[in-house]
C-alpha cells in the first residue's frame, strides 16, 4: 500500500496548528487559540483511525517523503513507517492529545499565554508523531529531541518562576545525558549497518550477531553495545534510574502538560524505542537483563518514594516512573507486547489521574495534599474518575491496568530470562506499593475533612492583588504585571493555571470560607475526564489473556513487529501469579484505607518511629543532592576556578600577554636612555661619531 495523504496529515496537521498559533496567536487567535489547536489534533486523531483501519487490514507502509541528509555513503530520508506498533502509538498519542487539548481549554482559560500554550502543545504532538512514525533512527532522534524541547518549553511555561525555569532546564539537560548515549548508539548503528533505515537495519540484524568491536579501548559485543547505548536514551527520556531526577521536577508545568507529556506519551517514547529496536535487543541477553533490572529497580524505587510525598502531582509523577519501570521490565524479559500493552493502558489511566489531579488543583489552588481533604462532596465527578483511574493503576481485576500489569508480571515469572524471577519479585512488590500510595492520595484528598482553609485565605489575598494588577510588585515575580503581561501568580505552584478573574472572585469572598467555594470543574474539563475514564476501564479489554477467556488480540496484533516470546509455565502457575499480585494489590488498598481512613494518626507515628527510612524516602534517596555535589558543582568549579581563573587567565593569557610584556619591559628600560636632555643626546652623538670613525680607521 502506498503512503496515503491522510498518513502524511497525521503529524503535519498539528504542525500547521503550531505555525498558526505561534505566528498570529498573539494578535489574531488569542483566546480562540484552541480552535486551531484542538481541530488540528482532532484531525490527526481521525486520520489515525483511518490509519489503524489500514493496518488492521494487514497493510504495512514504509515510504520516504524526501531525502533529508546526503553526504557520501550516509543517506537518510524523511519517511514514515506505519506498522502495528506505530498504529498503536498513533492511537495512544492522538487520543490522549485530543482529550487533553480539550481539557486545556478549560484549565488554561484566561491565561495570557493561552495561544503559546496551545502552540507548544501542538508542536509537541507533531514531534511525538514524528517520533513514532519515522522510518529511521535519525527521524526518531528528531522526534526524540523535539518532544524534549517542547517538554522544556511547557515545564518552564511559567517562566517567571525560577523553579519552573530550573525544572525545564534540568529536564532538558538530564535528557541530554541520555541522548548522549542514544546519539552514540545511532552512530554505532550506522557504522555497523551503513544505514539508519529501520527496514535495512532490522532486516540485516543477524549480520552483527556475535560481532565484537573495539570501543574506547574495550572489546565489546556489538549488539550489546548498540542496545545499551540506545537504552541510555530511553533511560533519560523515560526517567529511569539514574536519570529519573527530572520527572518529578517537571511537575512545575501546567497539569495538562504533565498528563500529556509526562505521563501518557513522551516519557513512554523510551519504551517505544526499545520495543521498536527489539531485534537488536534480542541479540543481547545482557542488554535485556540490564533493561529488566533497571526497569524493575526504578519501579520499586519510585514506588517507595511515592508513599511519602505530599505533592499531589509528584506522587503521580513517581507513580509514572514506577509504571514506566514496569514497562521496561516487560521489555527486558522479552515481553515487548506486554510492555506496549501497559504503555497503552497506562496512557489512559495515568492521563486520567493527572487530569483529575489537575481538576482538584484547579479547585483548591494548591498541590499539597495535606491542605486538601473531604473534597468528594464538592467534586463528585472528579472523585469518581479518580477512583476509576486509581483502581486501574492499582491493577484491580476488570480494569485496564489489571490486564496489562498482570501480563507483565506473568511474563517476568514465565520468561526464560535469567533475571526473570528476580524482577518478578520486584514487580510483585511494586504491585503492593502502587495501590498503597494511590489510595493514600485519594483518602487524603477526597476523604476526611478539608484542611486548607487557612491557606485559601492567604491565597485569596494574593490572587486579589494579582487580579487587580497593583502597580507595585507585591510578591516575587509580580514584575510580569509591570510589563503588562502579568497573568499568573508565580508564588503559587499551580495557580498559573489561569482563571484570574474567576479565582480572584473566589479569593475575595472565600478568604474566610475557602471550603465553600470549592466546586466541580466546568464541563469542558470533566467531559474529557469521563472519556478517559472509559478508556481506563475498558482499554485493556482488547488484551485479555486466554486464561481469562480473552483472545490476547493486542499481542497478536503486534506480533509481526514485536515477535512472540516463549514462556514456560502452566495454567496453574499463571493463576497463582495472578492471584498473588491481585491479593497483594487489594492488601495495599486495604492498608491505605486502614492508615488514612481509620487510624489517621498512625502514619505520623510510623514516620517518627522509622524516621530514617521515612526521611530517605521523603528526600528521594538524596539523588538530587548526590548529582548536585558530584556533577553540577564540580563542573562549575572547574569552569570557574580552573579554566577561567587558571588556564585561560594565567597560563594562556600569561603566555600571550607575557611575550609583549617582556618586550614592553625591555623597552621600558631602554626608555630611561631618553633623558630629554639635549647634552646627553649630543654626547651620545659625539661618542657614536668617535666610535664609528675609530672603527673605520682601525678596521681599514
Amino acid at each position, binding site marked *: 500500500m502506498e503512503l496515503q495523504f491522510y498518513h502524511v496529515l497525521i503529524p503535519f496537521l498539528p504542525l500547521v496548528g503550531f505555525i498558526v498559533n505561534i505566528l498570529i496567536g498573539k494578535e489574531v487567535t488569542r483566546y480562540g487559540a484552541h480552535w486551531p489547536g484542538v481541530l488540528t489534533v482532532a484531525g490527526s486523531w481521525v486520520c489515525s483511525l483511518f490509519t489503524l483501519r489500514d493496518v488492521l487490514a494487514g497493510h504495512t507502509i514504509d515510504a520516504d517523503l524526501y531525502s533529508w541528509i546526503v553526504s557520501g555513503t550516509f543517506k537518510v530520508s524523511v519517511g514514515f513507517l506505519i506498522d502495528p506498533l506505530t498504529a498503536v502509538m498513533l492511537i495512544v498519542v492522538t487520543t490522549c492529545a485530543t482529550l487533553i487539548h480539550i481539557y486545556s481549554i478549560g484549565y488554561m482559560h484566561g491565561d495570557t499565554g493561552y495561544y503559546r500554550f496551545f502552540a507548544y502543545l501542538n508542536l509537541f504532538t507533531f514531534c511525538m508523531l514524528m517520533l513514532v512514525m519515522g522510518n529511521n533512527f535519525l527521524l526518531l532522534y528528531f522526534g526524540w529531541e523535539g518532544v524534549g524541547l517542547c517538554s522544556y518549553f511547557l515545564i518552564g511555561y511559567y517562566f517567571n518562576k525560577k523553579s519552573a525555569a530550573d525544572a525545564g532546564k534540568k529536564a532538558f539537560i538530564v535528557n541530554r545525558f541520555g541522548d548522549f548515549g542514544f546519539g552514540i548508539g545511532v552512530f554505532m548503528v550506522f557504522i555497523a549497518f551503513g544505514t539508519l533505515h529501520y527496514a535495512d537495519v532490522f532486516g540485516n540484524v543477524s549480520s552483527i550477531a556475535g560481532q565484537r568491536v573495539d570501543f574506547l579501548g574495550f572489546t565489546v559485543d556489538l549488539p550489546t553495545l548498540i542496545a545499551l547505548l540506545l537504552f541510555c536514551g530511553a533511560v533519560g527520556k523515560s526517567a529511569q534510574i539514574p536519570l529519573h531526577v527530572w520527572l518529578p521536577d517537571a511537575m512545575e508545568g501546567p497539569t495538562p502538560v504533565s498528563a500529556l507529556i509526562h505521563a501518557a506519551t513522551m516519557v513512554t517514547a523510551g519504551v517505544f524505542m526499545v520495543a521498536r529496536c527489539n531485534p537488536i535487543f534480542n541479540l543481547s541477553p545482557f542488554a535485556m537483563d540490564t533493561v529488566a533490572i533497571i526497569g524493575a529497580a526504578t519501579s520499586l524505587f519510585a514506588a517507595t518514594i511515592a508513599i511519602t510525598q505530599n505533592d499531589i502531582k509528584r506522587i503521580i509523577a513517581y507513580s509514572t516512573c514506577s509504571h514506566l519501570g514496569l514497562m521496561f521490565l516487560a521489555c527486558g524479559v522479552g515481553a515487548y507486547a506486554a510492555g506496549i500493552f501497559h504503555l497503552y493502558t497506562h496512557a489512559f489511566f495515568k492521563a486520567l489521574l493527572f487530569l483529575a489531579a489537575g481538576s482538584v488543583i484547579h479547585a483548591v489552588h494548591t498541590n499539597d495534599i495535606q491542605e486538601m481533604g473531604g473534597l468528594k462532596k464538592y467534586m463528585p465527578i472528579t472523585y469518581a474518575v479518580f477512583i476509576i483511574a486509581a483502581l486501574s493503576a492499582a491493577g484491580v481485576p476488570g480494569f485496564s491496568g489489571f490486564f496489562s500489569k498482570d501480563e507483565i508480571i506473568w511474563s517476568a515469572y514465565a520468561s526464560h530470562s535469567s533475571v526473570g524471577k528476580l524482577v518478578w519479585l520486584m514487580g510483585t512488590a511494586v504491585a503492593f506499593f502502587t495501590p498503597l500510595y494511590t489510595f493514600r492520595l485519594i483518602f487524603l484528598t477526597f476523604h476526611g475533612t478539608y484542611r486548607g482553609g487557612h491557606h485559601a485565605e492567604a491565597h485569596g489575598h494574593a490572587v486579589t492583588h494579582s487580579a487587580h494588577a497593583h502597580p507595585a510588585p507585591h510578591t516575587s515575580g509580580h514584575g510580569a504585571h509591570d510589563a503588562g503581561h502579568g497573568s499568573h501568580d508565580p508564588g503559587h505552584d499551580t495557580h498559573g493555571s489561569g482563571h484570574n478573574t474567576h479565582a480572584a472572585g473566589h479569593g475575595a469572598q472565600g478568604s474566610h470560607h475557602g471550603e465553600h467555594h470549592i466546586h466541580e470543574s466546568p464541563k469542558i474539563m470533566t467531559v474529557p475526564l469521563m472519556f478517559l475514564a472509559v478508556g481506563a476501564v475498558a482499554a485493556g479489554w482488547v488484551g485479555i489473556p486466554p486464561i481469562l477467556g480473552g483472545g490476547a488480540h493486542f499481542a497478536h496484533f503486534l506480533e509481526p513487529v514485536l515477535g512472540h516470546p516463549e514462556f514456560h509455565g502452566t495454567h496453574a502457575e499463571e493463576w497463582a501469579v495472578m492471584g498473588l499480585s491481585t491479593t497483594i494489590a487489594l492488601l495495599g488498598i486495604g492498608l491505605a484505607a486502614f492508615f488514612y481512613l481509620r487510624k489517621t494518626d498512625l502514619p505520623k507515628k510510623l514516620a517518627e518511629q522509622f524516621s530514617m527510612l521515612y526521611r530517605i524516602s521523603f528526600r528521594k534517596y538524596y539523588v538530587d543532592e548526590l548529582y548536585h555535589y558530584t556533577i553540577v558543582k564540580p563542573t562549575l568549579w572547574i569552569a570557574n576556578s580552573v579554566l577561567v581563573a587558571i588556564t585561560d587567565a594565567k597560563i594562556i593569557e600569561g603566555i600571550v600577554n607575557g611575550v609583549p610584556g617582556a618586550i614592553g619591559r625591555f623597552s621600558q628600560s631602554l626608555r630611561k636612555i631618553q633623558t630629554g636632555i639635549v*647634552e*646627553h643626546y*649630543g*654626547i651620545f652623538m*659625539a*661618542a657614536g*661619531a*668617535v666610535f664609528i*670613525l*675609530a672603527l673605520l*680607521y682601525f678596521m*681599514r
Partner: protein
Amino acid sequence: MIQQAFFAYFAFAITVLALVVITRKNPIHSVAWMLLLFFHIAALYLFLNAEFLAAVQVIVYAGGILVLFLFAVLLVNVREEMRISRFIGAGAAGFTFAVGLLVVVLMALRSFIAAPPGMYTIEHIQQETNAIALGKVLYTEFLYPFEITSLILLVAIIGAIVLAKKGLRG
C-alpha cells in the same frame, strides 16, 4: 717662511679665539670674540686664493649670523648664565669625546692621500678671477643644488617668521 709665519699666527689666533668663545660666561662676550674669530678665518681664506668666500665669510657670518646671535642674546636673559655654573655636569664627558675625536681624526689624517690635482690651477683662477670661476661652476654644474639651497633659505625664512610670530602672539 713668511707664509708659514702668517699661518702660524692665524692658526694660533683661531685656536685661542675659539677657546675663548666657548668659555665666556657672558654670551655677548662670546659673540664679540667670535666676530674677531671670523675675521681671522676670512683672512686664512685669502691665503687659499678664495677671495669670494672670504668676502662671504665676512658678510654672511660676521655681518649676518653674528648680528642674529646678538639679537637673540639680547632678547633672552643674557645674565642668567652668570648666576649658574658655566659648564654643565657633562663637561668632562664632552671634553673626553672632543679630545677623542681630535685624536682619531688626526691619526686618520696621517694616512691622507691627495687626489690628482684638477684643472683649476691658481693661474687659471687668477686669470678669470675667483668670483667668475666660481660662478661658472656654480651656475652650470651645481645649478640644481644651488636652487635647492635657495629653497632651503626660503623655508628657513618662513620658518623663522612662523616660529617667532607664534611666540609673539602667545
